[in-house]
């Protein structure tokens, strides 16, 4: 089983950190994983994106042309990448910032107001953790335990933030159920 | 009888330096070889040689040599010394090498204050390739690539490397001497001793420029060359110590 996801948004939305967390989690779970970022000039202006592939076997291209899943953190990302999702694939839409709807009936859409959820929890910074929860809830590539373990690992010494991050993760999971 | 002069112990008794009669390179070699002998450095020495006439004394000098590409000696010497601080590293370069194609390597090694000793032979032309114009060629002096003489408008003025390097913060000793008569050669010997000692003590970067003669390409006898240095070259390149940080 090989699952690809492209995560895209503004610089500063934590797009790259979600991607890396997925990769670290997959690596810890003993799977093959690749993380391929857009690099160079792009990282300093506006949009950022990365492709993550998690697989049970050797990975071919780390930059696939047809995606199993898109996570669109902002409107320009939705506009640019929605058409790259396969028939039967899915899109997680950050509906706090994206107003468009998925029009292709062969693609499953999940609207997650990640920024609103994060603000309600008291920290705008955890919007990407909400999205991490949503991804794990949907993709089947990683378990809930894998997700929580990587959150704990990434927070490291900032254990006081763990509860809020777990809550954000759970909200994300629930949002796609 | 008391012996008052002898050849530097480690230099070859059989191989010639390979320089033209009247050339300053042989004198410059003798001076820095003398300094190596004085401080007992021969077995620690790595001599970074340039492309140009500078390298012709390879068989004579009989110290370990790493031959650089044209202009790159500053970078090579930098790295050898960094990775092998126990070695004594000299970069010996001519004016085409140090002041034209290797300007960047020269300035940056100086600016980093590498613990190396740079000996710069300024003979106002590209010698080995046959007398083309160098950044150090005199205004009005003819060269095979400036056959009517160097012009300020077309070529700019002679480039004063010692003065430029003395403006940098890091270098510890920057000086210019001449090799056209005995009095100046003795002063040059003292300057080279000082530059070598600086590296021995681990105190940093030193740069010694030596105004030298090139009878073959200047198309002058050695005596005429010495006069030309006095009357013309030293006006563009005044002698002196430009930096001496205690």
């Amino acid at each position, binding site marked *: 089983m090989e699952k690809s996801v492209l995560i895209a948004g503004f610089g500063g939305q934590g797009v790259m950190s979600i991607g*890396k967390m997925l*990769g*670290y989690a*997959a*690596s810890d779970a003993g*799977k*093959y*994983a*690749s*993380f*391929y*970022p857009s*690099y*160079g*000039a792009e990282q300093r202006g506006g949009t950022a994106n990365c492709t993550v592939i998690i697989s049970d076997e*050797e*990975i*071919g*291209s*780390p*930059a*696939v*042309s*047809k995606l199993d899943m898109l996570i669109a953190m902002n409107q320009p990302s939705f506009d640019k990448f929605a058409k790259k999702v396969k028939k039967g694939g899915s899109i997680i839409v950050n509906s706090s910032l994206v107003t468009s709807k998925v029009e292709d009936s062969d693609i499953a859409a999940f609207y997650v107001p990640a920024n609103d959820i994060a603000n309600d929890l008291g920290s705008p910074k955890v919007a990407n953790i909400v999205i991490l929860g949503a991804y794990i809830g949907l993709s089947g590539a990683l378990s809930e335990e894998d997700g929580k373990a990587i959150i704990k690992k990434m927070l490291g010494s900032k254990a006081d933030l763990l509860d809020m991050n777990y809550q954000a993760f759970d909200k994300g999971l629930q949002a796609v159920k | 009888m008391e012996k008052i002069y002898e050849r530097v112990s480690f230099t070859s008794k059989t191989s010639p330096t390979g320089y033209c009669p009247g050339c300053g390179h042989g004198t410059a070699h003798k001076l820095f070889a003398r300094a190596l002998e004085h401080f007992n450095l021969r*077995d620690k020495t*790595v001599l*970074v*040689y340039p*492309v140009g006439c500078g*390298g012709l004394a*390879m068989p004579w*000098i*009989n*110290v*370990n*040599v*790493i*031959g*650089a*590409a044209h202009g*790159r000696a*500053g*970078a*090579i*010497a*930098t*790295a*050898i010394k*960094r*990775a*092998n601080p126990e*070695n004594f590293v000299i970069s010996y370069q001519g004016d085409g090498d140090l002041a034209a194609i290797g300007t*960047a*390597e020269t*300035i*940056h090694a100086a600016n980093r204050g590498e613990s190396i000793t740079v000996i710069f032979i300024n003979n106002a032309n590209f010698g080995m390739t046959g007398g083309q114009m160098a950044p150090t060629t005199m205004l009005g002096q003819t060269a095979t690539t400036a056959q009517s003489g160097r012009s300020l408008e077309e070529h700019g003025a002679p480039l004063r490397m010692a003065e430029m390097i003395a403006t940098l913060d890091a270098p510890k000793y920057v000086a210019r001497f001449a090799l056209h008569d005995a009095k100046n050669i003795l002063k040059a010997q003292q300057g080279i001793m000082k530059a070598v000692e600086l590296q021995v003590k681990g105190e940093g970067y030193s740069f010694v420029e030596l105004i030298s003669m090139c009878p073959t390409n200047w198309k002058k006898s050695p005596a005429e060359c010495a006069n030309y240095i006095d009357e013309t070259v030293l006006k563009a390149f005044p002698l002196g110590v430009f930096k001496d940080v205690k």
Partner: protein
Amino acid sequence: MSKEFIKGNEAIAEAAVRAGCRFFAGYPITPQNEVPEYLSARLPEVGGHFIQGESEIASVFMVFGVAATGIRSMTSSSGPGFALKSEGISFLAGGQIPAVLVNVSRGGPAIGTIEPAQQDYFSAVHAPAPGGFRCFVIAPQNVQEAADFVYEAFDIADKYRTPVYVLADGMIGNMMEVVELPKMRDLAELPSNDSWRFNKYNDDGSARILSTYMPMGELMQKKNKEMAAMYEAWEKNEQRWEEYMVDDAEYIVTAYGSSARIAKSAVKELRAEGVKVGLIRAITLFPFPKDAFAKLDYAKVKKMFCAEMSIPGQYIYDVQNAVLGQSQIIPIQTSGGVILETDMVVAAVKENL
């Protein structure tokens, strides 16, 4: 051994340290910047030295100088930087100085694009600089191999006293993958360079001279012949390639580096549909794995496909030279930072069944 999820450029850098590399000089250029960044912090931890050179040229000559003192040394860059480094690469080859060069290549010519491409093949394999010499060239297809090949490159460099060129690309340099890094080498166990390093005197006290200047034609020719003999020895002993489902294949796809892993996905997809297709992946690019192509049964092979991220094609010339007209070879090419897609390879094969 534990596995790590690590970026290609960092894996390259760490593998070099573990191989015993104690000197690196380089100059910033995308997409390889994490190599010098990582080593600037890492080398001092192990008693090594890092210098950010004032230019690509200065950097490669810093490596030349230190490698000439017998210390394992490396530089890295990307296409435009290698154009500048070519002078120093020639000196490494001419001076028989072992060193490792890593090209995390991008699209060109000129500034081109920072996106990944395979447009430096000729430059790496056939003409790293004027003067008619070769580098040993090896091409990883993923982050694991990038680490493994850089690690091994130092041994190959020492064995033959040659520059070894690791030809990666921006995809391998910038992606993260799960990697098992090689073990830390004990410097005391590395082969001694005392017999030749140029900051040591000979036992009889005479000096060692590293000079690439050969004024007598006969001497230069002798050296050229010795180098040619070494290249022949590489061709005989060091060719390396991977075969995947080649035994019963009627169609052969060939590629190297990043293109090969993409081509392999296409072969799997086509096999699942019953197409008898296989992959030959060149691992060493010089010596080129001619034997992989020489031993094919051309009575059975209907068509061949050559995939690479370079337009015009470059790798295809060496493939043609190895196939010697015994099969049609159909190019599948992208360029300038456009990444080869599995579907392109699948479609090209299907159109030609």
